[in-house]
């Protein structure tokens, strides 16, 4: 060993511009000299017969939002192979709706993407109304647009909050959650429920807005940009956040389309496909808003797309809240809508009408329809087959995150374990929708 009294670290550490000092073998007491060109050759470890390690991430795991299982074969920290196992929240939606009536299906649709239940309600009712040819009143349409956009903000808050928590930044979650609680108070005043609203009915809405709700919305919306700005300030230019998310989980636009991606995850790859712009419904063509589109298709772009979409939703709500027309909130059709309670108790026809609607339900004509809506997660489609009775014959739900989960194996193989968590958060996998 070198003599401690004469040992000088500066002899071994080259300073800028200085040439590396040449050591001789005697400085290392017989060990190999690091300045030799074949330094690494002598030091390669012989193959010590490593075995791959198999670990399970899930089904219950703090970082998987929803119950599913990712089974990985690891070599150190690198994922060599992965397999995804879903179905841990399969509740048999498609079987049980065959014995319910059309209006009784609405609470089941709430629980599909439970972070934005009203959007699912509206999507389902829109499909049934299109099949029946019902003309929903303009007031109901405008209220539906407003509540869908509020839900879009809430869903993105949960998704981005949870995603950023998994990367390690906990504070943003609380900023988003506090803002979300205030929005939730608005929807609780309107519908009566905190998470599973079931506010729409086939033909319109269940009841009208309470007094003063519009002013409450305007007041609450004043506080949302601050929450978004807080989170942006903490993450967007943060070096750690960028290292964890840039270049992670990259997918090309063609691959994403072939895998069936829709929503902000597809827009992060560069495609500006948003059903509100390309196949507009409910008057979205009259609003002035943009579609944020990403560049690289990595996790950073996905999170940023969602945060930008929250700003665009705020724009839409500000425009829509002043444009709500007056009028009824549900269609005026005896075969579809329950008569008012006062009439039921006083008039025979209304009583029989009420009885028939409750016992037999709404009866669309036989036919099939596929209708889609742009939810915060992507395109949620309902394929409904009616055989003329009050029970749907078949309802197939097209869940947006099912197709994103299909891709997970493709995205994580070859990466590190820590990237799995970042990628999963970016895909916004809600198990209720994935497994139905």
């Amino acid at each position, binding site marked *: 060993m070198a003599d401690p009294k004469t040992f000088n670290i500066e002899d071994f550490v080259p300073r800028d511009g200085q040439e590396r000092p040449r050591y001789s073998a005697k400085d290392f007491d017989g060990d190999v000299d690091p300045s030799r060109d074949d330094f690494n050759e002598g030091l390669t470890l012989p193959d010590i017969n490593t075995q791959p390690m198999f670990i399970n991430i899930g089904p219950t795991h703090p970082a998987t939002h929803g119950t599913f*299982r990712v*089974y990985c*074969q690891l070599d150190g920290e690198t994922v060599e*192979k*992965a*397999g*995804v*196992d*879903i*179905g841990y929240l*399969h509740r*048999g939606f*498609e*079987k*049980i709706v*065959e*014995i319910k009536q059309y209006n009784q299906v609405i609470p089941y649709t709430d629980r599909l993407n439970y972070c934005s239940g009203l959007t699912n309600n509206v999507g389902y009712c829109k499909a049934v109304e*299109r*099949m029946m040819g019902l003309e929903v009143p303009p007031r109901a349409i405008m209220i539906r647009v407003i509540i869908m956009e509020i839900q879009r903000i809430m869903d993105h808050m949960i998704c981005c909050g949870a995603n950023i928590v998994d990367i390690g930044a906990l504070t943003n979650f609380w900023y988003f959650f506090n803002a979300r609680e205030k929005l939730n108070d608005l929807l609780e005043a309107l519908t009566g429920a905190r998470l599973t609203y079931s506010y729409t009915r086939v033909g319109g809405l269940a009841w009208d807005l309470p007094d003063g709700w519009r002013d409450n919305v305007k007041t609450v919306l004043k506080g949302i940009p601050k929450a978004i700005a807080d989170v942006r300030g903490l993450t967007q230019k943060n070096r750690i956040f960028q290292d964890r998310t840039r270049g992670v989980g990259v997918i090309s636009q*063609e*691959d994403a*389309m*072939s*895998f*069936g991606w829709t929503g902000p995850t597809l827009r992060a790859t560069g*495609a500006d*496909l948003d059903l509100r712009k*390309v*196949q*507009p419904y409910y008057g979205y063509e009259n609003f002035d808003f943009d579609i944020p589109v990403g560049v690289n298709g990595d996790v950073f772009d996905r999170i940023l797309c969602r945060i930008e979409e929250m700003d665009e939703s705020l724009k839409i709500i500000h425009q829509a809240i002043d444009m709500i027309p007056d009028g009824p909130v549900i269609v005026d059709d005896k075969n579809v809508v329950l008569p008012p309670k006062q009439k039921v108790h006083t008039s025979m026809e209304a009583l029989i009408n009420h009885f028939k609607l409750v016992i037999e339900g709404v009866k669309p004509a*036989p*036919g*099939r*329809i*596929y209708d*889609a809506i742009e939810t915060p997660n992507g*395109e949620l*489609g309902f*394929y409904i*087959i009616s*055989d*003329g009775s009050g029970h749907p*014959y*078949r309802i*197939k739900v*097209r869940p947006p995150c*099912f*197709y994103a*989960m*299909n*891709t997970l*194996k*493709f995205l994580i*193989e070859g990466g590190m374990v820590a990237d799995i968590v970042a990628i999963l958060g970016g895909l916004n996998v809600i198990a209720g929708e994935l*497994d*139905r």
Partner: protein
Amino acid sequence: MADKQSTQHDAIVTALKSRFGEGIIDVDRAFGDCTFVVSKSAVHDVLAHLKDDHGFNMLMDMAGVDCMNLPSYRERFELNYMLYSVPNNVRVRVEVPVPELDMDVPTATDLWKSANWAEREAFEMFGFNFVGHPCLKRLLTHHEFKGHPLRKDYPVMAGQWCSSTSDMTEELNEPK
């Protein structure tokens, strides 16, 4: 927008009818949608033609249907493909009647990667056998489940207990 879509539908209908003739059993235009009923033997060619020549680059969804309790049907089962074309912004649906005794259907995974899990789910719920699928296994129900739950003769409330979690070697080694 609806008129533009219906003219595009007209063009696709004429193109498919002239090319496939008797492979296209029927065309349905209800509710502004365009639905082709295609025979099982021609379905892969029709889908490939739609993807390559008409720009249908996204398979939105695949739905299986058990038509047993409908008033009229062609075969007991049916498979529906929901297609969407991003460049042309047009939707199309392809329906394939599948008889109960011969449920082999050619897979669409070579055309669209989204067909991978969609076909697994259709197999699990109805029993379609997709020929050429890389890993046709159960997806949503547990590995000890017997039967195909969405068939009309499977009782709604017949639950089956599961005693263990599944071994995932097959999914692990599935080619990418």
